[in-house]
Structure formats: C-alpha cells, structure tokens
C-alpha cells in the first residue's frame, strides 16, 4: 500500500518540487530587480522582443477572433431578434477573456519559446557560467528583464487586441451583416464597464508573469545540449499554456 502511494504520488511530488523551483526563481528575480546596477537597455530590449515583435501575431489573432465572434453570435441572436447585442457580446468576450488569453497564448508561442531557447542555449554553451565568472548575476541579467517585460507588455498588447478585436467585430456586424451602427455601439457602452477592461488587463499581467517565469525557468535549468534546448522550448510553451488556462479559471472566479 505504501509502495503504491509512493508510486502514485511521485508525479505530484515532482510537480510540487518544480513549482517550488519556479517560485524561487521568481523571488530571486524580484529581489534582483531592486538591486544595482539597473540595466535599462536590457529591459527595453526585452520589452521590444516580448511586446513590439509580438504585435503582428496578436493583431491578426485579435481581429480574426473579433470577426468570428461577431459572425457566430449574430446567427444566435438573429433567432430572437437580438442582433443589436452582437457588439456587446464581442466586446465583453474580448475584454474579459479572449483578449488576455489569446494574447498570452500568442506571446507564449512567440516570445516564451524564444526565451527558453535563448537562455537554454546560453546554459549549454557555458554563457551563463561566463556571466557568473564575470561577476554578473544571470538572474538579474537574463531573467529579471524578461519577467518585467512580460508583466508590462502583456497588458499593453491586450489593450491593442481588445481594440482591434472590437473593430473586427464592428466591421463584420455593421458593414457585412447590416446591424445598425448606433445600436451596436450603444450596447457596448451600456454593457461593458471599466471593471471588465481592468480585470482583463490584470489577468493579462498575471499571464505575462506566468509565461515569462516558466519560460525563463525552463531555459535556465536546461541540460543535455541541443536536444535539451529543444525540450526546454517545448516544455516552456506547454507548461505556460496549461498554467495560463488553469490560472484563468481561478482569476475569473475571483474577479467576476
């Protein structure tokens, strides 16, 4: 019986251990954020990588999501003459859920995998040892700027995603499906509150934190050469994605 429990519990212990290590890396990055030297150039570079360079994929994803949402909800609402609610539905879904979640997923795929691969390569090619040898703390130099960029840039990207998503919904609803433009907008003003938008942005900051810490963690503890780097990048994406979905449920339960 004890043996069985040991066997069955091993994966959970493993997960808990890994979670603990991720948290320790996050704590270490937080502590190092307040210590000199402050490398603003490195931080701006990461903000560019995480934010600016992800903009195109986020725009495409958001605009198509808004358009699809408008199409789908139009067919539902038309059955009982509620076409005017399409705008509000699109806006609420985007600000509360689709904006933050889809943005986080796209950034995970683009920037998260790159973080794990880049830091992982630095680990296997002894560049992290070289940082230590040159008296530069690699958590401060590599992890902290990426986590900071993740937390800051995700909400900014989400604002853009919300906006273009609603614009996409407007285009489909008003231009293609002939919903009255005034009603479309009025319902949005009526039903979407600032809380919806802010809570969505808080969510996206949490997602930014999760994806950057997980990806940096996976890269930082890479072992096993080129194969290990590939594995780290894959795991970074898988674990970040799953963590984003799980945390989304809890954040939604708390917020709304």
């Amino acid at each position, binding site marked *: 019986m004890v043996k069985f429990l040991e066997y069955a519990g091993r994966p959970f212990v493993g997960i808990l251990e890994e979670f603990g290590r991720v948290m320790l890396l996050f704590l270490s990055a937080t502590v190092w954020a307040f210590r000199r030297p402050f490398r603003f150039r490195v931080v701006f570079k990461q903000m560019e990588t995480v934010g600016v360079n992800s903009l195109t994929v986020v725009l495409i994803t958001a605009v198509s999501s808004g358009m699809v949402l408008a199409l789908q909800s139009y067919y539902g609402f038309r059955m009982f003459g509620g076409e005017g609610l399409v705008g509000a539905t699109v806006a609420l879904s985007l600000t509360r859920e689709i904006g933050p979640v889809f943005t986080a997923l796209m950034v995970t795929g683009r920037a998260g995998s790159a973080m794990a691969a880049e830091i992982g390569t630095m680990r296997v*090619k002894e*560049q992290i*040892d*070289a940082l*230590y*040898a*040159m*008296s530069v*703390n690699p958590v401060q130099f590599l992890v902290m700027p990426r986590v900071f960029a993740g937390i800051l840039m995700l909400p900014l990207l989400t604002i853009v995603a919300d906006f273009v998503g609603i614009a996409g919904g407007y285009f489909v609803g008003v231009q293609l499906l002939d919903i009255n433009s005034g009603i479309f907008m009025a319902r949005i003003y009526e039903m979407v509150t600032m809380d919806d938008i802010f809570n969505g942005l808080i969510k996206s900051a949490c997602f930014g934190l999760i994806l950057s810490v997980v990806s940096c963690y996976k890269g930082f503890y890479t072992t096993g050469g080129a194969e290990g780097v590939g594995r780290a990048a894959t795991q970074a994406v898988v674990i970040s994605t799953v963590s984003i979905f799980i945390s989304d449920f809890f954040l939604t339960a708390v917020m709304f």
Partner: protein
Amino acid sequence: MDGLDLEIPEAQITVILGQSGSGKSVILKHIIGLMTPDGGEIFINDTDITKLNERELNEIRKQFGMLFQDAALFDSMTVGENVAFPLVEHTRLPKKEIRRIVEEKLKQVGLEGATQKMPSELSGGMRKRAGLARAIALDPKIILFDEPITGLDPIMSDAIDALIMDTQRQTRATCVVITHNIASTFKIAHNIAMLYEGKIIEFGNPDRIRNSGHPFVKRFIRQEAPGKCPN
C-alpha cells in the same frame, strides 16, 4: 575530487594535466567559485572563497578572467560588445575609452578589425581569441583557460599556445590552463600538475614531470593506451 591538494604559484603558467573526464574542468570551476566543494577549502591569495557570500565572491571574481572551452561569447552581441561587456559592467569608463581598450585587447589577440563581427561569423580559433580578449579586458591578476586548444587544428593550436605565453608575459598574470594535450603542456607550462583519480599525483616543472617515476605519469606522457594504472 578526493583529498585534492594543489598550490598554484603566482605569476606563472600552471597546467593541470589529466585524462578526459578526470575532473579538470571541475577544479577550474571550483577555483572561480562556479562550483562549491562538499568539503575542504579554496584560497585565493588569503581568502577562503568557500566561506564567502555571493557579493563577496563577485568581488573576488573581478580579479579573474576565464576563457571557456567554446569561448562562451554571447551570441546576441558583436565581438566588440562581448569584449566591452566586463568594462561596461564593472567600470565607469567613458564609451570612447572602452572602445579604445576593446580595440587594444582585440589587437593583442590578433583580431583587430573584428569589432563589428558576430560570434557566429568567427572560426573556432578566432572565437577563442575573442574569448581571451574578453577575459583580459579588466587586466585580471588570474586567468583561467579551460581546454584552450581542444578542437583546433595544429597550426591554430600553436598560435593559441603562443598567445597564452605572450599574454602571461605581458600581463604577469597567474595562469591556470587545463588540458590533456602533452605537447602543448610542455611548451607553455612553468609548472605541471598531474591529476589522476581525483588527486594531484605529481606537481613540478616540466623536467620533473618528464622524469617522474609515477607509472601513470609515465604512461600519460608516452601517450600509451588508457587503462587502469597498476598501483
């Protein structure tokens, strides 16, 4: 490592010689504090670095320069930025002065004009040179070389050996080189430490090693097939 005892003389080149997988790199990583020993002490001058916290260790590390096996240049930076890295991090020198030092160090290793190149554009030998330029950027008192000629052709190996000797002559730094290459060792070493099964089994100048009576040392120098040492 098992009861390893080694004193490295100042301002000379000491080569730690041993088989692949004998723990040579581990010694080097202990010297610069990248690894901590399970037991024992490591003194840099008069400071036992095993008892230091990270901040104190970082101060000690500023006396070091290290050339890693594959040079460990940062891929995302140019050669010039790589060499400038320790200067930017640890000095308040103006940009112009940093540029001057970078060019001087690159010239010293025979890489003038490579400032704007990316590490991926360099050959193995050039990467090592750039790595050495970065290692000596802060004029360190101690320079560590992790297998400096492994993976290089004989001509380039010879050039790197010459570079190590030149660098030591010019800087008067304490150099620790780990290698398994006999020819290179006898060419550059003032002292040789022979590592076998986690212990230093012989230490001294090249002549002493050449005339050593230890069976493993004899076998290693004659480059006979590896095998368990008789005693």
